[in-house]
């Protein structure tokens, strides 16, 4: 029985909760009251058909994206495909890798098209789309494990930063991961790009053939998973500091490449309470930088992260 989409204001009266099947969005907009309600109404109207649109093309969206793939038709599905397309020659990736970020992005664009807002965010289970008007900012908490929302640091994004999308991926999250990262948080131009990149970087944080990593073909857990017979991570035993570093360096290497291609602005990678940062993010508190990538033992140290590029939006 098809449950209808749930649309409600949260008890604080400011945030809106949109829920439909596996999609769960928290929406908040700031601005003039009429603008906020116009934006919420537009978000509602757009939201109710999104899941059905996506499901109409689900078989296609679950197939590996290739340069010559058939392009999906729906607006959200096109965002998904565009977000994963840069990776499709180098690795197996399906448009589903960017579904959460693409939904968030579709809603935020609907809202900003409908009304003039000071700022707004859509949080789709940790994949976040932002709108920042002139001189606006958001302070964003970062978690080291998506299943245990304990913050390891905060990040402030201000309007002159180019970041409008933030996404987090890891094997403990709701989607499957091929890697062993607890959480990889990526900052990008938009939410769909951040979502795809977070998936790719989290997959790269890995120790291939390590006996302490338990893996299962995705299909054995979820028969219709887009990952088919690929081995997804189901458990990671406690690793030595050397192994943690090795896995994180694998991820940092991949992330650095994405940054050089201009696909992302920065990233934070977390594995068993170790956090490493890509250039672009700097730690305000004291940390160890022996190999050039700031290292933080979380959550003992709570850090304030600083994003570079405050003065030049195109840095």
């Amino acid at each position, binding site marked *: *029985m098809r449950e209808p989409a749930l649309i409600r204001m949260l008890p604080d009266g400011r945030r809106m909760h949109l829920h439909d099947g596996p999609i769960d969005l928290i929406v908040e907009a700031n601005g003039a009251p009429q603008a906020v309600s116009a934006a919420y109404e537009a978000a509602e109207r757009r939201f109710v058909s999104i899941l059905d649109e996506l499901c109409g093309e689900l078989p296609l969206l679950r197939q590996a994206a290739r340069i010559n793939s058939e392009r999906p038709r729906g607006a959200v599905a096109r965002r998904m495909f565009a977000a994963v397309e840069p990776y499709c020659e180098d690795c197996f990736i399906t448009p589903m890798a960017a579904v959460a970020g693409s939904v968030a992005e579709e809603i935020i664009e609907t809202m900003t098209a409908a009304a003039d807002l000071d700022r707004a965010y859509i949080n789709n289970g940790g994949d976040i789309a932002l709108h920042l008007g002139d001189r606006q900012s958001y302070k964003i908490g970062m978690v080291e494990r998506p299943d245990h*929302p304990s913050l390891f640091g905060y990040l402030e994004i201000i309007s002159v930063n180019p970041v409008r999308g933030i996404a987090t991926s890891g094997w403990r999250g709701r989607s499957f991961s091929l890697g062993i990262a607890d959480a990889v948080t990526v900052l990008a131009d938009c939410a769909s790009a951040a979502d795809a990149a977070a998936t790719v970087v989290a997959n790269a944080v890995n120790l291939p053939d390590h006996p302490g990593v338990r893996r299962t073909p995705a299909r054995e857990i979820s028969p*219709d998973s887009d990952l088919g017979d690929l081995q997804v991570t189901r458990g990671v035993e406690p690793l030595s500091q050397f192994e943690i570093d090795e896995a994180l360096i694998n991820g940092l290497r991949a992330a650095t490449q994405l940054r050089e291609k201009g696909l992302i602005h920065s990233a934070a990678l977390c594995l068993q309470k170790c956090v490493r940062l890509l250039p672009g993010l700097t730690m305000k508190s004291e940390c160890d930088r022996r190999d050039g990538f700031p290292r933080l033992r979380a959550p003992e140290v709570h850090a304030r992260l600083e994003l570079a590029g405050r003065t030049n939006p195109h840095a």
Partner: protein
Amino acid sequence: MPDVFPPDTVRCDACPVLCYIKRGHAGACDRYANVEGQLVRVDPHILLDRAKSQGTPLVPFLEREGDWDGKIMKGQETFVTAIGAGTTYPDYKPAPFIVSSEVEGVDMVTVVTEGIFSYCGVKLKIDTDRHLGPERNLVRAQGEPIGHVTTAEYGSQMLSLGGVHHLTGGSKSEGRVTCETLLELCNGKEVELTIDEGASVRVAAGKPPVVNGQREERMRVGCGSATIGMFAKQWFGKVDDVVVVDDHITGVLSEHQAGKLLGVRETGIAIQGRRSTPGRYFQVAEPGTGWGGTNISDPLTILKPFKPKFAWPHLRLLMVSTTGEQFAYYELDETLRPVEKELPEALKESVGRIRENCEPALTTVLFMGGAGGSLRAGVTENPVKLTDSVKRKLTRVTCGGAPAYIWPGGGITFMVDVTRMPENAFGYVPTPALVAPIEFTLKKDDYAVLGGHVDYVRPLGDVLKEKERQRQLISHAQNPWPLKPHAGGDES
């Protein structure tokens, strides 16, 4: 779509993703899972924390962060509800959670399970004086029959929805729509119902009903005529005439039987509209959202000129609506025209009293279900003994921590006010049937006597350690604490 699945894979139809879910796993949303081959909703298992002080609203806590040391919460202050507990139905085996805790020196046991109810329904009380439809006519949702109009009660109309015949006895879509509507109502959502040869209503538990697009605000204390009857004595001597403006029956004190009995003098007042009996007028104006459910904003528009034969200068006139929300006070000038004046102190009280007697119009949703044999078998090896224990009030029945009213007679047939249960406490299975939480709390000694599954009793501390899927809520301030010994099994 995909190849061949193990035989106990289920396909979830709660959303268009239509996940295939293997036994023991959840779908993409993490909200529905395959439990023993049955599709079951698996939202976080809800625990209630006893409110520290009365009056604390039901507030969901975030999932606890950090490690649980087992000491933060004293045992007697946490009650494990059945919401999200799952069920062992249809197997004959112990309920998913049988939890022991010591309360005021007494060892208590709570048997916690989600029941699958094909025999269930909703009793709806809609506070309205509007005619919703003839008694016994069908109530429909999305065009499907899901219940019927039953008796009208004082100021309210009762509807009976669901029940096994609509859930499983009709067409497939009748069952589906019935299940969907009951689920929405029980989870506090608004639904739209239409009544054959009657009105269309939008209702949600604890909210004012909307009848044919019009929202009911307050229950009238009575019609205009009844209001005259109730307050005539309080007005006598303080004012010369009173008009209670009402779309149904507008009342006039000086002409009304109640005024005559008190000896109220004729005032020469003349009212627009159709006179029914002395002092009672129909159709003084069109229906609307103004005074007393009419379309008027200036009450003088329903008055014709006073008759000079009876009226006198300085005559005092009160006009008030049936809910007391609108009122105006006039005195006649030398030409017998009403001039508005400030309401005298002596009349303020009576207007206030009309208002305070008009209670907010609400919709009440009572879930009604019967605990079948296999559900009871999850509690005890001898199901009839549970019935007996409940009837003797040794066992208390709660639904998500809310008190349940147990019907006298055979079986365990209960009713519960859904607004006293935590949010989204109900689920469904595609059978179709509703999934409702149910908890049985009794003394550990009594549990052993009735043949309970004592080997499966686990201390509360153990259950609390499994914090992965648990969510803590503050219990509803009006609910008696379910673990309190000897609080009685009845509704408080």
